[in-house]
């Protein structure tokens, strides 16, 4: 045959086979053996923040363990944007094949949905929850450069108390709003700092009077002596601060105020959680849940996490689902209005 005939034929054949091998035919869900499905597949563990942050650290810690327990290859993928909203929107809208899971800031996502924030395109009640990875109570701290020394000082302060945070629903500012509303504090929250560490630095410098941070962060700041831990914003003491009283031990709050602290604690209970798209086949979701439950409650893995400064507080998908349903549906429109005012307007 002529060169000018068979070269193009071979080239077309090679190109065609390359294309056909690259285009994967859609897989049909295998009834029954989810394990068989996951073996050899690739699970994307998506993080809504950039590399190097806390979520990224947790995801990279969990990935090899999940890989071992599912038989799939687990790849961590960073998709920062919108404070985690972008990735969550994408995961919720992805194909419900159980291959895209996300380590989400469930606390912030729930608050964003509750307050109808711009860019929310998900409904956490539809999402397939897998497990909660961690959660921490919040601790109220004063700056040592401020004259405030205890909770009573703050409650009696005539002048305005300044707080630092990065965004209105960043789990620092909104905790502060809830606490201020519950304790009738004369607060002004200054947002715009580039993250929790910069906000804490502002408190350390004395630029603001106080900050509400997670217990593990509070431990570090208290250890260095720059910030003074005042109280735990919840019903139970933190294991990291066994001697630090809770706000309920320090102050007798009327029910409507106590509710604010309780509700925010409930939100805190959502913590960092793993989820996947709505509509994932039940056996695959069940398989992932079982794998994650075994990983997160394994004492050796918990110790491993503690060694790199990460705490695992496991909760099952059922618990998460109940918590979410209750959080999102227990409020009447008046209370919701009040919340919106407290979180988004009152202290700015």
């Amino acid at each position, binding site marked *: 045959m002529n060169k000018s005939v068979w070269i193009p034929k071979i080239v077309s054949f090679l190109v065609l086979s390359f294309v056909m091998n690259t285009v994967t035919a859609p897989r049909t869900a295998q009834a029954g053996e989810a394990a068989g499905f996951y073996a050899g597949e690739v699970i994307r563990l998506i993080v809504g923040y950039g590399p190097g942050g806390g979520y990224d650290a947790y995801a*990279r810690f969990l990935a090899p363990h999940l890989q071992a327990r599912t038989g799939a290859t687990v790849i961590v993928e960073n998709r920062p*944007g*919108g404070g985690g909203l972008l990735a969550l929107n994408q995961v919720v809208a992805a194909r419900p094949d159980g291959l895209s899971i996300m380590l989400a800031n469930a606390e912030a996502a729930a608050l964003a949905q509750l307050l109808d924030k711009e*860019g929310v395109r998900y409904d956490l009640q539809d999402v397939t929850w897998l497990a909660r990875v961690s959660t921490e109570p919040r601790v109220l701290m004063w700056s040592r450069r401020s004259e405030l020394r205890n909770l009573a000082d703050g409650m009696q302060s005539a002048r305005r108390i300044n707080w630092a945070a990065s965004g209105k629903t960043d789990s620092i500012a909104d905790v502060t709003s809830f606490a201020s509303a519950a304790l009738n504090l004369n607060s002004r929250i200054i*947002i*715009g700092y*580039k993250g929790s560490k910069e906000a804490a630095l502002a408190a350390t410098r004395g630029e603001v009077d106080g900050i509400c941070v997670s217990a593990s962060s509070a431990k570090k700041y208290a250890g260095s002596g720059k910030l003074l831990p005042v109280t735990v914003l919840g019903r139970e003491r933190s294991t990291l601060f066994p001697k630090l009283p809770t706000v309920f031990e320090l102050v007798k709050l009327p029910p409507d105020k106590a509710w604010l602290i309780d509700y925010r604690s409930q939100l805190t209970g959502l913590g960092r959680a793993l989820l996947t798209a709505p509509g994932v086949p039940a056996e695959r979701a069940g398989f992932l849940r079982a794998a994650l439950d075994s990983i997160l409650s394994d004492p050796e893995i918990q110790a491993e996490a503690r060694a790199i*400064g990460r705490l695992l507080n496991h909760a099952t998908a059922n618990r998460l689902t109940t918590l979410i349903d209750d959080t999102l549906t227990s409020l009447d429109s008046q209370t919701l209005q009040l919340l919106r005012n407290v979180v988004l307007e009152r202290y700015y």
Partner: protein
Amino acid sequence: MLEMFAHGLQLVLTSDVLLAVLIAVPVGLLAGILPGLGGIAALALLLPFIYGMEAMTGLAFLVAVHAVIYTGGSMSAVLLGIPGAPPNAATVADGYSMCRRGYAGVAVGAALTASGVGGLIGFVVLVALLPFVQGVVTLFGSPETFLLSLLGISCIAILGRGAMVKGLIAGGLGIFLAMFGYQRISGVPRFWFDIDYLLDGFRLVPLVLGLFAIPEVLSLSGRRKATRDEAQTGLEWAQIRTGAQEVIKHHWLCLRSALIGVVVGIVPGIGGETAPFVAYAAARQNSVQPDTFGAGAIEGVIAPESSNNAKEGGALVTTLALGIPGSAGMAVLLGGFLLVGLEPGPDFLTEHMDIAIGLAMVLALANVLAVIFMLGMSKWLIRIAWVDGDILAPLLLVLVVAGAYATNNNPVDVLMVFVFGALGWILRELGYNRAALLLGFVLAASIETYLHISLQAYGAWFFLRPVSLIILAIMLLGLCWPLLRRLISQCRASPRP
């Protein structure tokens, strides 16, 4: 303190760490040279590699890669007119002009030497400040950050000298582009038009790639292979040597630019991208021939490159001492610390000062190695500038496209590169200063945010603080310097009674 030095040295002089540094330097240089991978994308992609490494080895690897990215980036800026990383954008104007006029060797020698010297100055300052860093960073609050950002923005006026209105339009446009997306002080996304991508507004990497890489790639495609002149080869080493000597000649410029870099690096609120522009503007203000800037002034290469590398020393101070990343790259480095089980912060220096000093030494070592390595390779690298444009252009576009995707795993970033590419091409053709646009873009958020925070926390007289007043004085002095210098020389020239 001396024994900490000894401990730090001990940590560094192990085969593991030295090997890590030896591997990291070419990796960082390559990441810097390849336009699509500049800056944090490369560092972020290398983060998983250190999982499981010994703490010091993994950290040394990351610090070394990060320290030399801008050294590598200066090569693409000079030889191709494409900044390898966003901070290298300030080097493009003069470096690339020199290359086109046949002085590529001089520009390369100057850029590399300035980078190395700047890096070493950064190291010296880093080590000197570490024991006092708490006090130093406490001095720089929100008012100081606002005023420093204002100082940075005022450099737009200096960059635009000679075509002031055009420079201000470019700068203003840059600031306006930064208005899209979340406003930090209210949490409300501005002008997002219900498009998820725009919640965060426009992104830096697609902007830089679009503004600088696309127009140059389009120009490249028309260029045929240059005939290699044998006489030129000998000239190259001579040129490179000349370039290096120029840095020694301009030692005050180098020092000042490095110090600017360190200060900008230390202040967490300002992105590191600003340092080279401020250094460039300061160099221009102080130059006796300011009009040569933009057309091939050697100071226009030395100043930004020196400050680029020095700023990493400054950023490392804040990252190690406070756990606050001074830049996006440092944020990734911080992640590296967490991966190996360490947490930078106030406690870190008390317990691990030797690691901190060891990393500072790694910074210095990496800078020196990078310069030696690149000077050795420079003769061959310069040949890149002669490659046929038809081959170079599509390959560069491949790097740009893949690199743009790699930044955030977002295909829209790739599209935005071309949108900004169109803008960049128009700006270049019409003679508008793209660096001014970039500077405005980078600083806009800081200005709005820290002004608001300062007013809220301190009231209207927030600037009545010692450091703020010093910064204000420097800003006014800097802007008026050419006028003042003229007045002084006129006074001197006028005959005494």
